[in-house]
């Protein structure tokens, strides 16, 4: 019997998910033993045309990390969907947009302008901007188009499973892969696998007391006590609105949870969940004082939706098209 086929792909991501796969250490040898790796651009020299040449549903398991930022990302998402039996949105970018998704707070035009023109480290006197067509030696080549907004993978193609995390934690990856290697029954499609069913607070060992916050601090502004809840101390920790599964890694290193495992089960939107949690802990009954307290939260939207903006209910900043203005 031939080995099951495994593919790994990265779209708009940082590469951390690929490292996380290798972080399962010597178990990677079992993976290589059990699976036939047919596509893995970061590690092996397969080309897109090799995937195109495969019959449909040829790949048994495809771990797709990265969000959909360009037409190339989208093309590969469709291609790998067609060629795979099980497509997994692997890591926070594919699951819900992640850090690249924060670009949804800006217009495409502004992003390109900043990167290619205005940023202090850029010198671009010829005013060269990315093009989708380019002529070289009399031949025309096509280049990927940069989209208006970032999308999570499941907004482009249907996916069977989601493995959250930025990056997914190696023991969780191993648990999921072992399930397949051992031939255990798989969870129903649409499931989030490799994560817990509670919030990050459930895994946190710090002591929680009645919370009364008068001022929010950024981690560098305060020396935090190592065994007391960070939110109790006024450090904005996303734990109450984040799915468990990571083993409370950041909080054990004295850093607040940033929310990479996404919204907890049965919650539609991580940011608004966190608003609910925060409004229970701010110690004030005066609207103006509340306003003052929340004003020292740096970058509210970026904090509440650091990893989940493209998959949140409102998805992106409302961007007015030319000709529209705020009053009509």
């Amino acid at each position, binding site marked *: 019997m031939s080995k099951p086929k495994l593919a790994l792909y990265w779209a708009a991501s940082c590469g951390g998910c690929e490292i996380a796969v290798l972080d399962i250490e010597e178990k990677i040898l079992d993976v290589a033993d059990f699976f036939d790796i047919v596509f893995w651009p970061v590690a092996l020299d397969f080309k897109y045309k090799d995937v195109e040449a495969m019959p449909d549903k040829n790949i048994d398991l495809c771990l797709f990390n990265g969000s959909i930022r360009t037409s190339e990302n989208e093309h590969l998402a469709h291609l790998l969907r067609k060629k795979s039996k099980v497509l997994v949105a692997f890591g926070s970018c594919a699951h819900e947009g992640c850090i690249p998704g924060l670009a949804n707070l800006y217009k495409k035009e502004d992003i390109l302008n900043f990167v290619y023109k205005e940023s202090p480290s850029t010198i671009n006197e010829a005013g060269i901007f990315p093009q989708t067509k380019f002529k070289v030696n009399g031949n025309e080549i096509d280049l990927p188009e940069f989209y208006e907004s970032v999308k999570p993978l499941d907004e482009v193609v*249907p996916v069977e499973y989601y493995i959250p995390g930025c990056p997914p934690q190696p023991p969780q990856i191993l648990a999921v892969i072992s399930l397949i290697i051992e031939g255990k029954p798989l969870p129903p499609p649409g499931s989030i696998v490799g994560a817990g069913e509670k919030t990050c607070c459930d895994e946190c060992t710090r002591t929680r007391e009645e919370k009364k916050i008068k001022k929010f601090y950024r981690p560098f502004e305060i020396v935090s006590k190592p065994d007391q809840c960070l939110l109790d101390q006024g450090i904005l920790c996303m734990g109450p609105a984040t799915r468990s599964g990571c083993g409370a890694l950041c909080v054990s290193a004295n850093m607040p949870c940033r929310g990479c495992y996404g919204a907890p089960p049965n919650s539609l939107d991580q940011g608004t*969940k966190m608003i609910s949690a*925060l409004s229970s802990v701010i110690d004030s*009954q005066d609207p103006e004082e509340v306003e003052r307290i*929340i004003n020292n939260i740096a970058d*509210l939207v970026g904090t509440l939706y650091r990893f989940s903006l493209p998959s949140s209910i409102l*998805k992106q900043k409302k961007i007015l098209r030319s000709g529209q203005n*705020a009053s*009509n």
Partner: protein
Amino acid sequence: MSEFNPRIVGFLCNWCSYTGADLAGTSRLKSSPSIRIIRTMCSGRVDPTFVVKAFELGADGVLIAGCHFGDCHYQEGNYKTMRRVVLLKRLLYDLGIEPERVRLEWISASEGEKFTRVSNEFTEQIRNLGPINLEYLQNRISHSLNEPVEVI
């Protein structure tokens, strides 16, 4: 051009504001028909997720009304609502949606007249702001898979 009739969702608390709206009705006061009322047990029950979900589904404005401070049936639900709304408005502003599309009011059971005034004023306010136009949410595809997955 026909006049824009906004769609407004009104979350009214069971103990004060809903009764207040009821009083407006029995007193035959003319309130704006643009407000679709949803009764909640407390204004504190209104999760900010409800508000953004209402916007996603096409509401142009959301009114949240509860008991006056000190009158909450659950003692301090309305204080929590107040803090939520302050945070939520800041978030909406950051996401490019006018914070004025959310309005928080304290309406007691005897203030039928206040309910009428607030609902008429708020409808006018939203009419001036115009439709919410979140067309980028309309073409969102939600992919759901129902077929069982074959074991590899």
